[in-house]
Structures are given as C-alpha cells and as structure tokens.
C-alpha cells in the first residue's frame, strides 16, 4: 500500500473469532497497518463517514466486508460506500462465507473490488488470508476525495 502507515484497514465482521483469525493471518503476511474492527453495520458506517479518524475525513482506507451482519445486510453497506460519496473509490474486499452466485454477481454490480469466499478448512482459510495480506501489501489505494 502507498504509505504503509497511513492506509488503515476497516474490517466489518460480526464474528469475533473470524475477525481474530483474519487479523492474525494478515499480520502473519507482514501487514502492519492499523486494523479497525466493527461487529455491526451501523457503527461501521458511522466510523467510515463521520468519525474524525474515519476514512471519509481522514485519509485512505481499505475495507474488508462480511455480508452476514446482525443489523443490516453487507450489500447495503457496500451500496452506501460505493454510492456517490467520498468513499466511492475506496477498495472493498468482500470476505464472506456465502458462495451464492447471485450474491457474488450482485456485489460486483454494486462495485465491490474483490470477492473472497472464506474457506471452511482452516489451512485454506489461513492461506487465503495470507495471500490477501500479500495482495494488500502491493495494491494502490486512492486518496479520499475532498479532504485528500
């Protein structure tokens, strides 16, 4: 990522265990960026758009999004992020258990950048996340519009 320190990773994942495993494996891939974790959609959206440290007001970010959330559908969050707002160019990686074709298509239609189905088998899961970490280490994240 452009500046390894400045790009924060926002993880929206309701399952604490998954979040912990994802974080562990991203760290194992050598990614040291700050990871902000939210377990529900409302507080995540609030952080993304309104918090003073959030990406809308303070610098580039990359979003890891789970689709199965307790308070709202992940696709709704995706639609809000990719809608006509300051975060529309922010990369979103959908990381979820769903492998339903229709759901995958819908996410890409809404502007998701990467869609990853979590493997149930932990070895595969760990490997996938580590590869994602490697991927994160090389992608360019655009600056957020307006504030820069």
């Amino acid at each position, binding site marked *: 990522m452009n500046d390894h320190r400045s790009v924060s990773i926002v993880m929206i994942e309701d399952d604490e*265990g*998954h979040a912990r*495993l994802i974080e*562990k494996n991203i760290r194992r891939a050598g990614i040291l960026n700050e990871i902000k974790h939210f377990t529900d959609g409302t507080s995540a959206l609030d952080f993304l758009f309104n918090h003073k440290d959030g990406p809308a007001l303070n610098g580039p970010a990359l979003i890891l999004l789970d689709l*199965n959330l307790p308070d709202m559908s992940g696709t709704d969050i995706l639609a809000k992020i990719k809608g006509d707002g300051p975060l529309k160019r922010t990369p979103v990686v959908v990381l979820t258990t*769903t492998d339903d074709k229709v759901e995958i298509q819908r996410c890409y239609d809404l502007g998701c950048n990467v869609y990853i189905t979590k493997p149930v*088998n*932990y*070895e595969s899961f*760990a490997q996938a996340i580590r590869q994602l970490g490697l991927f994160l280490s090389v992608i360019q994240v655009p600056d957020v519009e307006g504030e820069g």
Partner: protein
Amino acid sequence: MFERLVRHIGGTSRSVSRWLIACMAIGFGALIVTGLSAAWLTARSQDHTGWINHTYEVELAISRANTLIEQAETSRRGYLISGQKIYLDIYRNASARLPAAFNRLAELTRDNPRQQASLHRLRALVDALQARRDHANGLIAAGRIDEARDAFAKDTDARQLPAIRSLTEAMAREEERLLSIRDAEQQASVRAFYATLTIAGLLLLFVAIASVATILRYTRDLAASRDTLRDFADSLEELVRERTADLSRANDEIQRFAYIVSHDLRSPLVNVMGFTAELEAATGTIADLIDRAEQNCPEVVTEDARIATREDLPEAIGFIRTSTQKMDRLINAILKLSREGRRVISPEPVDIAALVGTIDATLKHMIDAREARLVIDGALPAIVTDRLAIEQILSNLIENAVKYLQPGRPGLITVRGSRDGQRVTYEIEDNGRGIDPRDHQRVFDLFRRSGNQDQPGEGIGLAHVRALAYRLGGVIDVQSELGKGATFRLSLPVTLGDLQGN
C-alpha cells in the same frame, strides 16, 4: 299446470325418457285411432252411397211403374175415344211391361216389409184396373163403343187411379224417408269422425307440447348441470394449482432452510477449525518448550505437564479435528443437496447406454481393482430428462454396486431397462453383499447407512439419488436380500416436462 307436470316428470333422465316414450305411444295411438276411424267412415260412406243408389233405383222403378200405368191409362183412353188400333197396341205394350217393372220393384224392396205391403196393394189395384180395362177394350174391339164408354164413365177408374198414384207417391215418400234416415246416420258418422279427429288432434297437440316442453326442460337441466360440472372442474383445477403452489412453496422453504442452516453452521465451524489449528500450533510451541525444559532442567517438568502436552492435548485436538471435518462434510452434503434442489433442470434426450459407458470408463480403475464387470443387458429405452441428474443417479448407483461387493465373489453389475407406457424403468443389479430388508427404506435417508461400515462414505449417495429421482418426476426402490446382491429400480417419465424445474 304444464310446467308443473313437466317439472314433476322431468326429474331424472330415466323418467324423462319414459315420459317421452309414453308421449310418443299416445301420439301413435291417436294416429292409429284416427286412421281406423277414417277407414270406418270411408266404409260407412260407401255403404251410404250404395243405399242412396238403391233409393234412386227404387224411386226410378216406382216412377217407371207409374209411367207404365199412366201410359196404359192414356193409351186406353185414346183407344176409347178414337178406336184406333195403335192405341190398343200401345196399351198392350205398356200393360205387358208392367209386371216386369213390378217384379223389379219387388226385388229392390225385398228387405222392406212396408214397401212390400204397399207393392202388394198396388199390384192388386193395378190388376183390378187391368181387368176392367181389358174388358172395356174387348167391348171396343167388338164395336160396342157406347157400352165401353158407359163402362168407362161408370168405372171407378177415376177413383182408382188417384189411389194408385197416391200409393206410388207413398212408396216414393217411404223411400225418401228411408233416405233421410240414412242421411242422418251418415251425418252422425261424419260428426263422429270429426269428433274423433278433433280429439286425436288435441291429443297429438298435447303430446307434442308436453314432449317439447320436457325436452326443453331436460336440455336446460343438462346445460345447467354441464355448467355446474365445468365450474366444478375449474375450481378443482384452481384447487390443484393452489395445492401445487403450496407444495412448491413448502419445498422452496425447505430448500432455503437447508441452505441457510448449512451456510450459517459453516461460520462457527470456521472458528472451531481455525482456533483448533491455532491451538495445535500453540501445542507444538509448548511441546517444544517441554522438550527443551526436559533437557535443560528436568525437575520443572511434571509428569502431568508432560502427559497433558504430549498426549492429552494432541488427542483432544485430533478428536476436535476429525469431528469438525466430519461436520464440515455433512454440512457440505446438505448444501450440495439443497443446491441440487435449486438447480434448474433442463430436459434433453439422453442416451443411457452411452452414459453407462462413460461411467464405466470413469470408474474403470475402481472396477478393475475389485475385479468386477459392468454389463448392459439388452437395449436401454430412450428418455428425455436432465442429463446431469440422471448421470449422477446412475453413477452413484453403479459406484455403490462396485463398493459393496461380496468378498470372494467376482462382481457383476448389470444395467437393463424397459419401457411401460409413459414410464421407463432402469435396473441396476449387482451380486454384491446385499441390503438387509429392514434397511431398504433407511438407506435412502440422509446420513444413514447399512451393513458393515468398512467403506468410506457419509450416507449421502442414496439420499442424493432419491432426491434427484424425485426431482426428475421418478421414484427409486431397492430389492435385495443379505448376501444375495441388490437391484435398484429407477422409474422415470419417458419425457420430463419442461415445467418441472423451479
């Protein structure tokens, strides 16, 4: 009244037909009576005409006799006045013809005693007159004309002739009287005929109206019941549609439920498996530590710590691992089944023999390893169905047959098929170890297996096969005895409807 009668009668089709037949019988009866009375009237008319002729003949005979009498009288008087012989000839001629005329009259009025009596008197009068005339004529012929004239003057001729005339007139009147009686009779029979005709006509009219009314009403009833029937059929169709919709909705619900449940179960499973792996890694680290501690300062390592690290932890982790792996497979199986249920099936003509050949090739390694043989017995009937589904069904069944062979017996798997009307049946027969009859239904249930658990498997294959068979509008059953092989019979529609899919 008519309506009520008709309604009363036209209740059921049987009583309607009985009523119509009765009407027809009455109508024909009326026609027959009319015909008979017409025939009777014709006979009567002929009879009557005969009698009229007879009367005229009698009158003619009377008037002829009368004429002869008058002619005789006239000629006789001419003879008396003129003395000429020609008058005498005419007189004789007339007199000679008179008996024949009387005979004729007697013959005609033989059946009438009154006329006979009158005739008798007439004959007597005429005979008496004749005698006197003959006497007078004899006088004239003898030249005693004056005597003859005296005799004529004295004669009662003048009185006798009117008597004769009135007698003949009476006879004529008698005949006329008879004629008028016969006329009256004829009139009466004509009236009777007209009455019969009228009654028959009315009867026919009544019968016709009743029949038409009955038929109309019956037709109306039929139309009404046909409408009711159609409505009923429509509502039945509607009912079937509703039920089908309910069923498919329930089915969809189950599919969705299975999908969601299995899907959501995966999420915690990821954690269990993930942290088990973390635990394993950590155990490895701790085991290293124990190893090093044992080498460097053995007094720190207790027996419990060593057992916990080297045996208990790996054992517990191993059990968690195998259990979660199994659970993962089960969840995947459910997921696969539910996904199969959601898949849109597309019917196409499938060559089953070629399909079995492909399966044979795919399983060749396994079949050869177990020294089994797969043969097709006879021609397999053609079918239009979903290729993928039927391939999975046959592949599962054949694989099962290869898997569960009887040890020590060369495996022989036979595929055969037959067509019966709109359904085809494929049989996959093996000579393997067989299935206990108690388990014949159970083997088709998810996660249920039968017999020795010496082969890998989750108990999914046959459940999958049955679900697919149902999906293709078919059924599957098994016939088997322990140790004697098994025959799976798959019955499918010849042509799978396009509407079968979701």
